[in-house]
């Protein structure tokens, strides 16, 4: 399933907002869904590793098997992805 995160805003920075976005999805689009999701960043202008980390952790802690990232040209997005990969390693 593809999730377009710009539905939560174009400036995505805080941990509470990332967690809230994940919880919203788990109770709607991802209800009873345990397979992998692909994250589409189109439309996101600013992202931080804090928002993305909290968003991913919220999904995977509730049974989503894997989260994949669709390529983005926005540097704050690519840098956020790079830093949460560091966090995981």
């Amino acid at each position, binding site marked *: 399933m593809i999730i377009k995160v710009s539905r939560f805003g174009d*400036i995505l*920075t*805080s*941990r*509470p*907002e990332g967690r809230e976005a994940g919880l919203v999805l788990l109770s709607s689009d991802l209800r009873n869904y345990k397979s992998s999701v692909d994250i589409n960043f189109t439309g996101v*202008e*600013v*992202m*931080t*590793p*804090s928002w993305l*980390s909290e968003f991913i*952790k919220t999904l995977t802690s509730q049974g989503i098997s894997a989260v994949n990232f669709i390529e983005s040209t*926005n*540097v*704050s*997005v690519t*840098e*956020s992805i790079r*830093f*949460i990969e*560091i*966090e995981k390693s």
Partner: protein
Amino acid sequence: MYHIDMDHLTPLINFYLHGKISSDQNASYSENRGQSLARLSGWKKFCELNHLTNPGLSQLIACLGELTNNSYDHNIGHWHDLPGCYVSWSADKNYIRFGVADRGRGIINSLKPVLENNVDENTIMSTAFEKVVSGRSPEQRGNGLKFIRAQILSSSKHSLFCISANKSYKLGIPDDFDLSQQNYGTFTLINWSIL
């Protein structure tokens, strides 16, 4: 090399040192996270009006988002007196500058409990910016300052100055100034090259 322009920083220093909330057209106090988040789009607009474009625009606003969110993430329940953070901004044809100050417990007091005993305070400051460690341990978080450092280092023209509990951390900036006699709070300046 950028030098700190003290004239622009008086309201920020007054908040950091004295808890004084000055009225200034290029500064704002956000008592809670919601106010601070709402202002990010205005700060982004300020950067756009001063001709900052991507990728720098997204990088700088992401850094500002991490800095301001840190004020709330690490200080809830630990405010010295005033909650929240004070942000000031300015620009000229070469640089956009943001300053963020809070009166929370500070980086040193936040990290000391989760590091080994006897780690000196200068090491704690560099650890905060260079290693994955969180004052919110055992929660797995702590990349914000490392992320900011990486964005600053993406150009030799950007610079950063941060002071907390009298210990400073600097990237690409020769100046230092004394904000001593205070063992709480965090004061950070980012100077972002437009060119």
